[in-house]
């Protein structure tokens, strides 16, 4: 089991690059079984409810266009959000990066005098490593989503955007609850079985008192409506409602790309998101709130608008479409790579196809700033395109993956590959050179090892070095088809082949002098 490590940017510290992590993951039979069952269940549910809407293609086109239009005027919409939230009694903060967002939240919590916060499941607070930053300030953050609770109690890392504990089966979850719940609060009931209903009941009991006594909550948001200042959180369990309604102070950390301009725009996304995400016509609970409502819900509301690399993504004309993402996770569930490796192999907060394009961009791949692990993510794909097909906002993930691979190669991260490509170009560019290299290889074929040496060894981990033939095709052709040449054994000479052989020889001669 991997120990939770606070992320810096959107990747977890110390995680190996994707190929190594993936190799370990695909060797774990239990994990592969859990993942296959889960991804197939959810992708089938999605397909059924998407088919219910005959205008799905039109909704998808509208969703993509609304997001694009918003992003192309993002500064104006952000100012509108600020004005609307402020006039509704909320306070707006701006955070340029993770450290600043964490500082703002920690200061706000400290100002209340509290040392505990309850949390609604939120990808962005994972991205900035909020729980760890709060812990360093002596503030304990309690995750309240069932799956996040499983991850937190198990000192584990999330492996899916929607169902972060997708890699765990019921027996493992029961074991974690029995072992850890008592350490954190109300212990697991005696005789707890591994029935999902019993496990959910244990979570209810474990968290009930905490909800009813919490003074400060931290959330993200699925959407922020610019014209009204309304925040929207979609959820299933009611833990979101508990956190958004009962505490006195609410702090919502929201990425700047979550803005939609108008109230009416929600009519598109509230159809696209639940059907794409959980495969339901509508998720059990959606909360919408605007600033502060006297007498109802938190009377102290703070919105933290977060950049943390999003403006770098926005600056990339191909890559900026990743900011349309509404975090539904449909792309994870259909991805043949994700299905086999799971989310941990990506080593990042956002796993799967969307993570493979979002994480490197948030980390600054365009400027060559990213580490080897992040640089490996655009390669965690077969480019099959299933992710694009299901994306409710039509993000062309394969297009962005290829674009990012170019940036990784240009970024100097792959010096050996570039040197190899330059050498290949030198050889292949010149027929005479190629012929001499091929003959050299044929003569020394017994010396070529099964595994490549040095940094090339990784390539042969799952492949064999192709056998070098005793004779190159060109030499064979000349020998077989053009009579006496290098070797004396002239076979039957088919009519009309001499000119062809002559052409080969002539071209090779022409090439010699270059």
């Amino acid at each position, binding site marked *: 089991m991997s120990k939770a490590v606070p992320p810096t940017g959107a990747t977890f510290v110390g995680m190996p690059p994707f190929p190594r992590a993936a190799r370990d993951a695909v060797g774990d039979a239990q994990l592969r079984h859990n993942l296959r069952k*889960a991804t197939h269940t*959810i992708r089938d549910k999605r397909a059924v409810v998407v088919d*219910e*809407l*005959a205008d799905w293609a*039109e909704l998808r086109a*509208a969703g993509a*266009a609304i997001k694009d239009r918003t992003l*192309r*005027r*993002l*500064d104006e919409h*952000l*100012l509108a959000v600020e004005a609307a939230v402020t006039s*509704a009694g909320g306070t707006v903060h*701006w955070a*340029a990066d993770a450290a600043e967002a964490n500082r703002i939240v920690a200061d706000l919590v400290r100002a209340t005098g509290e040392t505990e916060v309850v949390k609604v499941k939120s990808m962005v607070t994972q991205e900035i490593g909020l729980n760890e930053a709060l812990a360093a300030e002596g503030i304990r953050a309690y995750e309240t*989503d*069932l799956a996040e609770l*499983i991850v937190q109690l198990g000192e584990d890392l999330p492996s899916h955007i929607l*169902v972060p504990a*997708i890699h765990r089966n019921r027996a493992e979850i029961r074991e974690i609850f029995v072992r850890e719940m008592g350490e954190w609060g109300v212990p697991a009931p005696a005789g707890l079985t591994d029935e*999902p209903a019993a496990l*959910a009941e244990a*979570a*209810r009991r474990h968290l009930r008192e905490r*909800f*009813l006594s919490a003074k400060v909550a931290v959330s993200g948001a699925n959407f922020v409506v610019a014209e009204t200042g*309304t925040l929207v959180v979609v959820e*299933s*369990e*009611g*833990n979101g*409602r*508990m956190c958004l*309604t009962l505490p006195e102070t609410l702090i919502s950390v929201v990425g*700047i790309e979550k803005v939609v301009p108008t109230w*009416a725009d*929600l*009519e598109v996304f509230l159809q696209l998101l639940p059907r794409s995400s959980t495969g*339901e*016509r*509508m998720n*059990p*609970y*959606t*909360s*919408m*709130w*605007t600033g502060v*409502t*006297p*007498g*109802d*819900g938190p009377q102290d509301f703070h919105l933290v608008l977060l*950049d943390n690399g999003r*403006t*770098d993504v*926005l*600056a990339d004309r191909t890559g900026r479409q990743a900011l349309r993402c509404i975090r539904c996770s449909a792309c994870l569930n259909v991805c043949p790579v994700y299905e086999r490796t799971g989310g941990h192999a990506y080593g990042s907060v956002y796993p799967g196809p969307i993570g493979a394009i979002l994480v490197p961009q948030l980390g600054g791949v365009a400027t060559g700033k990213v580490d080897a692990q992040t640089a490996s993510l655009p390669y965690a794909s077969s480019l099959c395109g299933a992710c694009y097909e299901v994306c409710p906002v039509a993000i062309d993930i394969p297009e962005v993956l290829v674009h990012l691979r170019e940036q990784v190669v240009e970024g100097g991260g792959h010096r050996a590959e570039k040197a190899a490509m330059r050498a290949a170009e030198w050889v292949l560019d010149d027929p005479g050179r190629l012929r001499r290299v091929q003959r050299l290889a044929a003569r020394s074929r017994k010396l070529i090892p099964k595994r490549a040496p040095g940094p090339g060894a990784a390539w042969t981990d799952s492949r064999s070095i192709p056998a070098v033939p005793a004779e190159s095709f060109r030499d064979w052709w000349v020998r077989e088809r053009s009579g006496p040449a290098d070797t004396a054994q002239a076979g039957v000479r088919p009519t009309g082949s001499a000119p062809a052989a002559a052409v080969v020889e002539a071209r090779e001669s022409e090439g010699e002098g270059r």
Partner: protein
Amino acid sequence: MSSREVILNRVRRALTDVPRDEVFPVPRDYARAHVVEGVLELFAEHLRDYRAVVHEVAESELADAIAEAVVRRGARRVVTPAGLPPAWTAGLAAATCVPDGWVYGPIDDLSDDPTNNRPKPAAPHLTIAELDAADGVLTGAAVGIAETGTIVLDAGPGQGRRALTLVPDWHLCVVRAEHVVASVPQALERLVPGRPLTWISGPSATSDIELDRVEGVHGPRTLEVLIVRRPPVV
């Protein structure tokens, strides 16, 4: 420079390829609704799909239906938000009703308050512990959505604060036929942004354990809906 300026400047720098007078089209040729007929039946069917308990009643049967539901549930203390029509609780013992005084202005009273952001805090204001001690809550609803099996509460009269429908374990919700629309777009047209809104589709649920759906986690574990049929046209 403040982070506000830093972020706004970064955004503007990132968008130098976008003409400031650009008109970016959004195609809105999706359907306003997917069904026209049988909206009420579909509403009931989709509520049941997500494990809500559903009854369809005539206006004249409503008080009895509420009283029967309370008895069936064995509920002794039922939270009643301000603005609940008195007729609804006519069949209940006074001791059963636990009133909460908080009320938001009615939606149609926008004369002096264009945003309608005018909640009226009033006694009694139930504490969280009092809500936790109640067996259930009885409310109306602002909108029902047939295509998704959703009920929307907007804190209006008879719906109350959000906590009222969250802490008690049983939610008995009355939805009038005239409040039921076909689709999400139609629902948003009827709702007033600015009010605290709760969209409810069945009881709370989780699929976090092996994608097995379990109903009843933190919100009310039982959602019971009384759909009040339209009076017959004479």
